[in-house]
């Protein structure tokens, strides 16, 4: 017997988000499997996944909020806090570390006057570390939004932040 009388609340989500999430259902055996896609869809629309959205997505997928929270926090690319419009990920894995990842991080953070994970004052950027981006032959490497940028020099950092 279902003792929950409260209706599941999807109201935190926009019709576009709900439609995109629904479209994913046909690709999998059950709704649970859509968890990651659903979180990524919400994040695409809003930049991050708030508590309110998490509850709404869990309602839509018919799973508990705790279960979805467990999935959301497992992944490096699901943000549970607001981030800048553009997230700059700098690779800190072995080859990039060897060839100057720390200098890249320092330069990025100094330019924007932020710590890792912080939003810049104008809301434009957040700097985060990321593991090997699969471009080690062009280390050091960063990902600006969705775009991979290789062989990062001091000039390249300046250019990325100027545009």
């Amino acid at each position, binding site marked *: 017997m279902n003792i929950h009388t409260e209706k599941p609340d999807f109201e935190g989500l926009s019709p576009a988000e709900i439609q995109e999430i629904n479209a994913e259902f046909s*690709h*999998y*055996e*059950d709704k*649970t*499997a*859509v*968890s*990651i*896609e659903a*979180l*990524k869809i919400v994040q695409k629309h809003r930049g991050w996944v708030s508590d309110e959205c998490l509850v709404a997505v869990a309602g839509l*997928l018919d799973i508990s909020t705790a279960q979805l929270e*467990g*999935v959301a926090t*497992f*992944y*490096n*690319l*699901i943000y549970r806090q607001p981030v800048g419009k553009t997230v700059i*990920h700098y690779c*800190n*894995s*072995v*080859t990039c*570390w*060897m*060839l100057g990842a720390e200098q890249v991080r320092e330069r990025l953070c100094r330019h924007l006057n932020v710590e890792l994970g912080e939003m810049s004052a104008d809301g434009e950027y957040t700097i985060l570390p*990321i*593991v*090997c*981006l*699969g*471009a*080690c*032959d*062009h*280390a050091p490497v960063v*990902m600006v939004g*969705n*775009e*991979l940028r290789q062989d990062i020099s001091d000039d390249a950092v300046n250019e990325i932040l100027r545009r």
Partner: protein
Amino acid sequence: MEQMAKPLTKNIRPDRAFATLADYESTGGYEGLRKAITQLQPKDVQQWVKDAGLRGRGGAGFSTGLKWSLVPMDAESFQTRYLVVNADEMEPGTFKDRLLLERDPHQLLEGIIIAAYAIQAHVAYIFLRGEYHLAALRLENALLEAGSKGYLGKNILDSGFNLEIILHTSAGRYICGEETALLNALEGKRANPRAKPPFPLVSGLWGKPTVINNVETLCNVPHILHYGIEWYRSLALGADQGTKLFGASGRVKNPGLWELPMGTPIREIIEEYAGGMRDGYKLRGFLPGGASTDFMLPEHLDVVMDFDAIAKAGSRMGTGTLIILDDLTCPVQMVLNLEEFFAQESCGWCTPCRDGLPWTVTLLKDIIAGQGRMEDLDALSGLTRMLGPGNTFCALAPGAMEPLQSALKYFREDFERYITGNNAVMESV
């Protein structure tokens, strides 16, 4: 000639961003599929790939044809089978699958369709790491192209065989590349590995028989079918078969990725293809196949890139992308960087790994900070045993211990110098 010697990269050319369907077809693309699906039975395709001697390129080197032949094909109750493509490439120092995904997506699709036919799977998932945005775009586009030409979907090439391929993009976590964790991730659960047995071949995705193969593995398959077993077995130089993408990163003159015969000597890769060390740097050692492989030394340069040859030299071929350690980079700090990665990416499911990796990091940091003691080296050795094969739920922790155990063996004086150096300072105070 060149084309036949480099089947995996023949369509990857500097003068074009990627191979379109027309480019791919112009060099024999989808001919392997045509042969497989119109002339061969699924069991024959399995046998071809087995006889060709293809071994998995995801790191473990398991025979691909043998893997396929272990899928239950007879029982009525096993009508649903899945093929899952492991495109989660996240092993530090590894950059081979991205090239294949971005520059020649149809080669992978053809490999998937043939593999699915061989195990009679009607749904295949590509599990792509979330950061590979360009690869996702190219794959989506290629899936549409292949569908519109009748290579994919219902009644493929009038054979009666149906296949749907679904692209799943992940959200960034190294453990998802472990095949049973990957299955949990695909099911939308926390990506902890599963207990084996049952093996995914029998009970995998949603409890159904599931084959999981690496991107590069599947990219070999169309060529085996198109050009034949004998041709494939003529490609390599040593005990293993075919060609492979080998790479080198670090302070070499010309870091990069090259398709070469299996059995190519490591010396040739480092000295000829990568152009040797940059001026002012000497070769101190290298990890032959990504972060979770044991260090090798300059004395191993004449070892060849074969699974068994590398194993005999005390390491693993892994992903075949070399990470070069030069003489001005501290091996202790390099190992710290690697262990920080593994500690961060551990899924936390089993105690030795969850507790042991952070402890490893702490010990290494203390040593580097000049606060280490000789006993710490014994403690690190103890950890390499505690987290070694057989003591943890999956291969992440044993993999993490490989660079550490070999560094303790080969670069012990570097560890000791931090410790004794510290003592000298204390004495002089």
